[in-house]
């Protein structure tokens, strides 16, 4: 039994050293793994694992933040990922959530750290925006089938679907597309809705006016909004007189949101 325990202790120490070697910024910075590897009958082969681990993690992160990677340039982005791997290290069991941990690492970078890495002031916001797009793309489906807004009554609830987010931005990061990643990013406030199209599953972004943002925020509150309150919040936000033309515009906007898969009628309790 003691021999068994010793064998397992040895295996555990080796595993820890190997994972550390794979994630360390420099392959020479983890002496214990190197020495363990050098006692193996196939010593240099362990470095293959380091290359495989780092390539997979880099690709996963780059795939999640393609515009950030392009804007920062390969060298700077690589350095950022290497710093993440060695200091924060991926802790999630799910590969698809590694980019979320990378984003958390960026958020925790002290301003001095960000300056040292020469990150532009919009970098974090662009990263957050790109992650939000992924989150929306793969957000859980709503519990039940879509209920259209036709015939909605005053006391019915209107709700935002799960796959939509309303966010205030301070830079125009939402205008940087995959096709045109070098589009200039300006410092300008905007409120956007990132949503998943109900039929095509494509993730899209709408720049919102103040009344539209108020509408969606009301619908996104837990439990959604009673339809009459929903209309009132839109009227308050617009500051316009509520007349026939306002109601027509409101109805058209609400139905447009519903057709995109942003809003739906709430389920009866």
């Amino acid at each position, binding site marked *: 039994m003691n021999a068994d325990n010793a064998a*397992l202790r040895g295996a555990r120490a080796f*595993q820890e050293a190997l994972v550390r070697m794979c994630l360390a910024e420099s392959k020479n910075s983890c002496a214990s793994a190197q020495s363990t590897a050098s006692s193996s009958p196939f010593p240099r*082969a362990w470095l293959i694992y380091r290359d495989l681990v780092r390539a997979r993690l880099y690709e996963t992160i780059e795939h999640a933040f393609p515009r950030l990677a392009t804007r920062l340039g390969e060298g700077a982005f690589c350095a950022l990922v290497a710093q993440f791997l060695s200091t924060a*290290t991926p802790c999630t069991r799910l590969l698809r959530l590694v980019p979320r941990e990378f984003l958390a690492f960026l958020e925790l970078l002290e301003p001095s750290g960000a300056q040292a890495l020469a990150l532009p002031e919009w970098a974090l916001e662009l990263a957050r925006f790109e992650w939000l797009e992924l989150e929306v793309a*793969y957000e859980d*489906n709503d519990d039940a089938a879509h209920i259209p807004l036709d015939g909605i009554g005053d006391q019915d609830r209107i709700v935002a679907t799960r796959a939509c987010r309303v966010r205030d931005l301070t830079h125009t990061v939402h205008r940087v597309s995959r096709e045109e990643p070098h589009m200039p990013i300006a410092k300008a406030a905007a409120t956007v809705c990132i949503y998943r199209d109900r039929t095509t599953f494509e993730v899209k972004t709408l720049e919102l006016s103040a009344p539209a943002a108020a509408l969606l925020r009301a619908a996104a509150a837990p439990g959604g909004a009673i339809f009459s309150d929903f209309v009132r919040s839109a009227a308050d936000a617009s500051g316009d007189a509520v007349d026939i033309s306002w109601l027509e515009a409101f109805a058209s906007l609400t139905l447009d949101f519903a057709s995109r898969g942003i809003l739906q009628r709430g389920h009866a309790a």
Partner: protein
Amino acid sequence: MGRGGRLRAALDRCAERFPIVTHGLALSLGGFEPLDRAYLRDLRDLVRTSETPWHSDHLCFSSAEGAFSHELLPVPFNLPMARHIADRIRRTQDALGVPMAVENISAYALAPGSCMTEAEFISEVVFRADCQLLLDLNNIYVNSMNHGFDAYAMIGALPLDRVCQIHVAGHATSDAVRIDTHAESICEEVFALLEWTLSRAGPKPVLLERDDHFPAWEELCREIKRLDAITKRAVTRFESCRAQNRELRP
């Protein structure tokens, strides 16, 4: 797991037409960290809704000290490690409520402390855990080239009656090391191993793994047709031997 949108819709469409078998990379069965209860709970939900007949994962570790490498890393082939993994497989099986199958991995180095052959190690784990074997023939071929052993002898030493599924794939060669990539066509040697194995193991589901560098659709279909033809030929041979009450020996 826990995903909606396009992927969920695709899975639902597949489930309407085909039976689903779940396969994972994240259990780290050869690791030393406690089994992740939250992950097992989510996996159990998926296993139930997909009605998978078994769930498979790999004979390897991927995490240590809370850090995840997201790579299939080799464990030493020895009895204590076989017992350790078998215990974790049993506990996973209990948590999921379906039988487990374990898959042999490609390895580019041998973990220190190994004192068994890979076939002995796999057999030990499978019998101790009372689980099934997902036999990856490309991984066996890759290992046989990287570590210098006879792939046929290794397959012959495995408990083929425990095989629930076979994986085939392509691999790359880098600095004389074979690397499992799932990004190339299957090599001739692996096609040959498949025929040899199926004629001894009998009919088994065969899965072509292709994750990257996809060829033209027609080329992929040709590969599938060839796999079909090999499977039919090998299974006919297996059935004919069985009818004559004789078994093909390794």
